[in-house]
């Protein structure tokens, strides 16, 4: 098996699907000649031509809105939002339209589209090129939200997302793009949407995370192993729908839960996870459900010392693990 980066695994996934199914097209700013600002779609325009790899006008609402329309006319659009921070102008189209079309039409219409969005920070992107936006969309029935952390998961989940008959928001962590490498099999495969994955087994506590923070959590877990604490690390992979069973059964086993995300604490996905656990695994809990998240400031600042102060780090996560273990 070949070792490739997260970025390459996503490009491969798109490429292999486009080769198979002529209904698939890519629509976004600079996705053509430029191959996207991160080069995820590099080379696709040469392979599939300008009618299947289209540079969109600089207008996110119609990027989403047009893909919604196209999805209702027997095509399978993959919209690229250049930075997740710029998905907000499309909020109405995604929340009021894409997410509600099946329900409001009583199942008569549906919107099989994928919206790819690079998110997350730690790359000197400052307030508007670093945001974690998942919490907004994890609150929206009718949407699915996927956030893989490894090349293997990303490729398998991307293919599943393109085949999904409902709208899927596919989140790609910018810092993981080239940092995270992994083996990906030659043969065709899928990772089902809605299934979490235990990336490290342990009996002393459950850490629930995703994206870049999943990797930081694994680092911290490694550190605690040397201190004799066996941490189980659960990679959500899909943020909506949440894999309730995976979360609850792990916590019932370890009886302690630590939630880690890069998004702001208040109103973040961690709240929902804590609520699930505290309602449905209450009897098993042997310590307070703890969250390690970004502080409640509008977004990640540019200047290095501020960016570092903002980001949850393996060290901060390890400290929280120790505290919870000691409880």
């Amino acid at each position, binding site marked *: 098996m070949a070792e490739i980066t997260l970025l390459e695994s996503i490009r491969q996934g798109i490429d292999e699907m486009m080769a198979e199914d002529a209904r698939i*097209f890519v*629509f976004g700013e600079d996705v053509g000649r430029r191959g996207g600002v991160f080069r995820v779609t590099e080379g696709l325009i040469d392979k599939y031509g300008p*009618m*299947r790899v*289209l540079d*969109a*006008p600089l*207008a996110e*609402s*119609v990027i*989403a*809105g*047009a*893909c*919604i*329309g*196209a*999805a*209702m*006319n*027997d*095509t399978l*659009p993959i919209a690229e939002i250049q930075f997740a921070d710029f998905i907000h*102008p499309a909020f*109405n*189209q995604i929340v*009021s*339209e894409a997410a*509600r*079309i*099946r*329900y*409001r*039409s*009583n*199942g*008569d*219409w*549906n919107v099989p589209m994928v919206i790819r969005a690079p998110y997350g920070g730690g790359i000197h992107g400052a307030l508007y090129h670093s945001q974690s936006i998942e919490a907004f969309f994890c609150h929206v*029935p*009718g949407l*699915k939200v996927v956030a893989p952390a490894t090349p293997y998961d990303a490729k398998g989940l991307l293919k599943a997302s393109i085949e*999904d*008959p*409902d709208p899927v928001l596919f989140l790609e962590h910018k810092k993981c793009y080239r940092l995270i490498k992994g083996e990906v099999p030659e043969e065709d495969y899928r990772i089902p949407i809605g299934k979490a994955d235990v990336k490290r087994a342990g009996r002393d506590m459950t850490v629930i995370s995703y994206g870049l923070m999943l990797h930081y959590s694994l680092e911290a877990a490694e550190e605690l192993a040397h201190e004799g604490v066996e941490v189980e690390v659960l990679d959500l992979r899909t943020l909506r729908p949440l894999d309730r069973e995976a979360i609850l059964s792990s916590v019932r086993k370890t009886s302690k839960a630590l939630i880690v995300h890069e998004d702001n604490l208040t109103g973040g996905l961690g709240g929902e996870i804590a609520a699930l656990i505290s309602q449905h695994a209450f009897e098993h809990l042997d310590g307070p459900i703890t969250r390690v998240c970004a502080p409640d400031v509008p977004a990640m600042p540019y200047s290095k010392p501020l960016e570092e102060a903002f980001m949850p780090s393996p060290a901060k996560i390890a400290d929280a693990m120790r505290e919870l273990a000691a409880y």
Partner: protein
Amino acid sequence: MTIDVQPMTLVGAPPGVDESTMLEMYRYMLLARAMDERMWLLNRAGKAPFVISCQGHEAAQVGAAFALQRGKDFTLPYYRGLATVLVMGMSPREVMLAIFARAADPSSGGRQMPAHYGHHKLKIVTQSSPVGTQIAHAAGIGLAEKIKGGDAVAWTSFGEGTTSQGDFHEGINLASVHQLPVIFQCENNDYAISVPMNKQMAVKSVADRGVAYGIPGVKVDGTDVLACYAANREAVGRARAGDGPTLIEAHCVRLTPHSSDDNDRTYRPAAEIKDLRSHDPLTRYRDYLREQGALDDVREQELRERIKHEVDDATAFAEQSPLPDPSTLLKHVYADS
């Protein structure tokens, strides 16, 4: 605000429109009006919590829909589009099912307010309440059609107030950049609820905005069904030929308050309201057909009776049809639910 529809002369039948077609147009206009008036009665009787009208827009909608191909072309009509969907194939019974919010309502199974039309088999695309979103969808349908190499057309409608939305700009801009087969019909009735056009835009005509996208902006008398048909037929021709989108402004009249929740006397000059009826597209077209000798008292009479019967039947049918079962609340959130 004065309504500058031309004096009482209609453009007359464009080439290729025979008498039976002209009468068919008239029938749909009458049907839409009769359905609409019935809805208000049901509302007053407490049987329909909400009504929003197409009264005054019948000519614009029937004229346009006659230029489209049923079952082939996509329509994305906004909430005043009753006459549009009737011509595109929705039956009076189907329309009434929505008014009573019944389970069998094809648009939404009683989930949405009435007038939020949708019907996949008829390619009537499901509509929502936030105005203008469908303009982007229409552009996307046109984009997909171009990608697939098909020759279907996407037709969408909206009010003049909705042209203030960003989605109006973004959607038409995309369609014009790629010369997509889309028709954008603005049904300008001078008001957005209570807001008059001069508080909505600093131009006299929405059609003037075509220039900003390098596409034809056509202004047509929206109370003249034959003029609206001609304008749309030309636009459809351009679209199918790959010559790109058209922005049509059909200047209509809003003969009713904005909706059953509105009272237009609080903001609309009495004289203006009084004057509205003189611009009723039905009266104008009836007079024209009579002049042409296409219509007389007898035919008018039998037409009206036939329509009254249809509306009675639709109302009775819908009223006795069952409400949605509460157990279906969780259905259709996703494909597997």
